[in-house]
Structure formats: C-alpha cells, structure tokens
C-alpha cells in the first residue's frame, strides 16, 4: 500500500471534470536573466473552461503553465486549484491529477505507446485490465488504431502521431485539469482540423479545465472559451471571449496579433442559423448546400467556391429551410460590429 496522499490532493483527485484555477500575482524570475519570464500574472479560470494562451515565442506561455503544476517554482505569488494552495501540496501527487502535454512531447522512448499512456494509471495503482481498457479507449479517441499502435515504440511514429499519443497520455487518468503546450503543433492542417473537432467534442463531454497554448490564432478562436493574448513577461494584453477579442481588440498589440481578416475569422464562430435566411426558392439550384449546423464561414466558403448568388440551407432532416447569400452574411456582421476603436480596458 503506498502512503496515503494528503487530503487536499484527494479533493482534487476525486473529480474528473473541471476545477477552479486561480493565479494571484505570480512572478517567475529565472536566475541570471535580466527580466522576469512571468511578471505579476493574475488570472482566474472557471471550472470546465478552455483557456487559450496566444503570444509570441519567448513571452512566457510555457513558464506560466509550468508554474501551475509546480514544474517550476514561482519567485512570488500564489496558485490555487479549487481553493487549495498548490504550493502546500506534494508536487508529485498534485501532478498525477494535472494532465500535462509538454511542448516537446517527451514520450519515453524505451516504452511502447501503451506503456507510455499507462504511466499515470500505473502511478495511481490501477489494475492491468482497467489500464488496458483505458489505453485502447484513448488511442481510439485520438484516431490511432489500438491494434496497430499499442505495441509500437515512439520512434516508429510520425511527429503528429507522437503528439496525439502525448495528448492521450495526459488524458489517461481523467484529470480535472489539463495543461497543453501546443499539442497539435506538428500536425498538418487537415489532421489538425480533425483533431480540433475531436477535441471540442471530447471537451464538451468531459468538461475539464484546460489551459491550451497555441501560436495559431485561428486555433485559439476555434477552440477557446476565452483567449488570453500575452506579450513579453506573460503580460495579459486582453483576456476575453474569441468574439469579443475579434470585434473589440483591446489595443494595437492585440489587433496585430489577430492579423488580417478579423471579419472572416469571426464567421467561424457564428452558426448559419444566426443569419436572416432568404426564401428557399432564392437558391439557384446547384448541388452544393449548407447545413444548419455549419458556420457562416462554411457558407461563405461555399458561396465563393460555387460563384452562385445564394445556396440552399438544409436542416438535419435534409429539408430546405431557406437560402443564404453574401448579403445576409454581411448583415450578421453589420449588426454585431461595434466601433473598432481600441479601448482602454484590461
């Protein structure tokens, strides 16, 4: 029997979906560095929230995450999970309940894929059968055929496949908190989009508290409940929902980070049903149709591709419920776009 974890860790361990994370005036100064890597960082993440960190290379995203699971000790400030000060918890036991996908993946080369995914379950003394079942379930979830992959070694996988194993490994013991450092960085755009969709679906059912680092603003918009745009020393330039950041960037820095095409990026977030659809008769035939579950971005894509003035919109039962045109898409943005002037908030 291993020694009993202290009760505070058990509290975190007991849950598999979201925990509240609070960082309070956290600073990290690496020794012999001219400036702090993270300076006076405060943030509250609600249970079940998916927070995206975006910011340039070296701005302190990784360091901020490492402070949460105590891989790095903060110079000052406090961090709590569900009200428990993490600095008072046993670090190893704490980390078993925080899924961590590191930027460099870090799979163990001498273990098979199944053994890699089974590391935390083993630390938690799960039975062999339970671990095995879980490994198979997770491999399937991340789109790797268990029969083919379970007994391979990491070096026999592509970079993108290794990343997926890294995600599966972090999910293994169903931790309430996940820290994911560019988990899809090494995948091609098509696989990445599939993984994002799968990830969103998964998150909808498991509802973990997730901090997710990305360089890709579109990924942040697509996945995040809220996005933290960071600048050097992990300074929060803006922390808000994707829609609010796109329509109302806090300053020049945020605008430049979003880049061009904010209108088109926003369309990703808006379902077709938000538009005032035209009559079904307006659709000029053609085989391309839009579904009510699609986003306005999908609709615009199809309109541009086909060159047609309007396309039919079909509901779940394949019934035409109306049509959509570029004008109707613009109208949605028009009503939503407030002044684009920078505001002083945050």
């Amino acid at each position, binding site marked *: 029997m291993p020694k009993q974890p202290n009760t505070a860790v058990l509290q975190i361990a007991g849950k598999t979906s979201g925990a509240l994370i609070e960082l309070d005036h956290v600073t990290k100064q690496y020794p012999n560095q001219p400036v702090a890597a993270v300076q006076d960082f405060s943030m509250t993440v609600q249970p079940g929230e998916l927070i995206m960190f975006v910011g340039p290379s070296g701005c302190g995203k990784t360091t901020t995450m490492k402070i949460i*699971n105590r*891989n790095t000790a903060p110079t000052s400030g406090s961090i709590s999970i569900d009200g428990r000060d993490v600095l008072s918890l046993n670090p*190893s*036991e*704490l*980390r*078993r*309940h925080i899924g*961590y996908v*590191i930027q*460099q*993946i*870090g*799979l*163990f*080369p*001498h*273990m*098979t894929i199944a053994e890699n995914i089974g*590391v*935390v379950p083993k*630390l938690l003394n799960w039975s062999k059968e339970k671990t095995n079942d879980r490994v198979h379930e997770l491999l399937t979830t991340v789109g790797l055929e268990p029969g083919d992959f379970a007994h391979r*070694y*990491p*070096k026999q996988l592509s970079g993108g496949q290794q990343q997926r194993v890294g995600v599966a*490994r972090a999910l293994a013991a169903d931790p309430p908190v996940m820290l994911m450092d560019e988990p899809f960085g090494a995948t091609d755009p098509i696989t990445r989009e599939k993984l994002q969709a799968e990830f969103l679906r998964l998150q909808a059912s498991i509802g973990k508290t997730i901090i997710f680092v990305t360089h890709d603003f579109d990924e942040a918009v697509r996945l995040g409940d809220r996005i933290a745009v960071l600048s050097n020393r992990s300074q929060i330039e803006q922390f808000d929902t994707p829609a609010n950041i796109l329509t109302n960037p806090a300053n020049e820095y945020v605008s430049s980070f979003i880049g061009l095409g904010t209108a088109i990026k926003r369309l990703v977030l808006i379902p077709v049903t938000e538009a005032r659809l035209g009559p079904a008769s307006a659709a000029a035939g053609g085989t391309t149709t839009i579904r009510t579950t699609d986003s306005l971005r999908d609709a615009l894509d199809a309109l541009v591709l086909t060159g047609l003035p309007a396309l039919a919109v079909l509901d779940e039962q394949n019934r035409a419920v109306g049509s959509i045109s570029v004008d109707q898409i613009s109208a949605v943005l028009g009503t939503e776009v407030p002044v684009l002037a920078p505001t002083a908030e945050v």
Partner: protein
Amino acid sequence: MNLDLNGLLTFWARRWDDILELLGEHLTVVAVALALAMVIGVGVGMLVWDKPFPRSTVIAAAGVALTIPSLALLALLIPVVGLGWTPTVIALVMYSLLPIVRNTVVGLREVPPAIMESALGMGMTPFTVLLRVQLPMAWPIILTGVRVAAQLTIGVAAIAAYVAGPGLGQFIFQGLSSLGSKNALNFAVTGTLGVVILALVVDAAFVAITRSTTSRGLRA
C-alpha cells in the same frame, strides 16, 4: 627454445581437465567481481549523477584506483586480506569501478531534458524517474561500461596468480617461474591463449546481452 606444436597438443590432451578448471575459475572470479562492481558502481552512480562535487570526486577516485599497477595493488592487499580469491576479487572490483561509474553517470545525465520534464510533470517522484526512465534509457551505456570493465579484468585476473588467486594466471606464472624446463612454454602459451579466447568470448556474450536486455525502442 621453440614452440613444439605436437608437444603443445599432447600437453593440452594431458592437462585438459586442469585447463577447463582454470578457465572456469577465471570466468567465475571475473563474473563475481563484475557483479559486485555493478552493484557498487551503478549504486554510486545513482547517488552522485546529479551532484557536481560528489560526482567529480567519485570519478576521480575511481580513476586513481585504475592507475595503481596491478601487481602493486595485489601486493598491498596481501597484508590486509591474505592470499587467494579475496584480494583478487577486491582488485578486480577496484579496476572495474571507473568504467561502470562513469558510464552510469553519463547515461543517467544523457536523458534529454524534455523526457525528464515530462516524467516529473506526470507525477513520478525523482526516485521513480531514476528507476523507470533514466536507468532503462541509460542501460546500454552502463552495459558498455561493464563490457570495458570485463576486458580489463580478464587481463588483470591473469596476474592474480601472484597472490595465489584463481584462474589462468596460474599457468602463466608456472611457465614463467620454470623457464627452461620442458613444459614452461606450454604452460605460458596455454594460459595466455586461454585469456585471449576468454576475452573474445565474453565480449561476444556482451553484445548478445546488450541486445537482448535493451528496449527495442532504444535500439538504433
């Protein structure tokens, strides 16, 4: 004084049982010494690999042990532990420590930082990381150290006959001390040949052991 091949063969035929026994002794004393040196060397390596001062001290000390001439070391051991197996095993262990400790330290330190970070980040304790990640990853490197130590000690063990130690050295010394007699050369040649063959066979065995005990994920 010429080597007479027929005489040598006759000598082998007559002494075959002795030769096998000495070979067996030689192999045994080397194996015992290596096993002890592995326990001590890997253990010490695990204790010091991440502490700069103890690490360099231990490696320097093991290096010094290696520079003591084997005859002198054996002679020094006689008044302390007497003759026979004991001084032989002690001397062989001392010679084996440097390659084993050094390779253990190198192997444990060579685990990439990302692997260390993910191991700790998943909630392994530093000791678990050492046992379940670093040691298995360092294993081929540690075994290489043991292999070097094996070559070294097979040679040194031949000199152990000087302290009445076991092994093929007995033949060599017997030959050297009876130069001029009929069988002197046969003794010396047989002992030397035995040492060389033993070294080759053990080396081949290490290649096989390394292959079969290293994770497939680590093999090139």
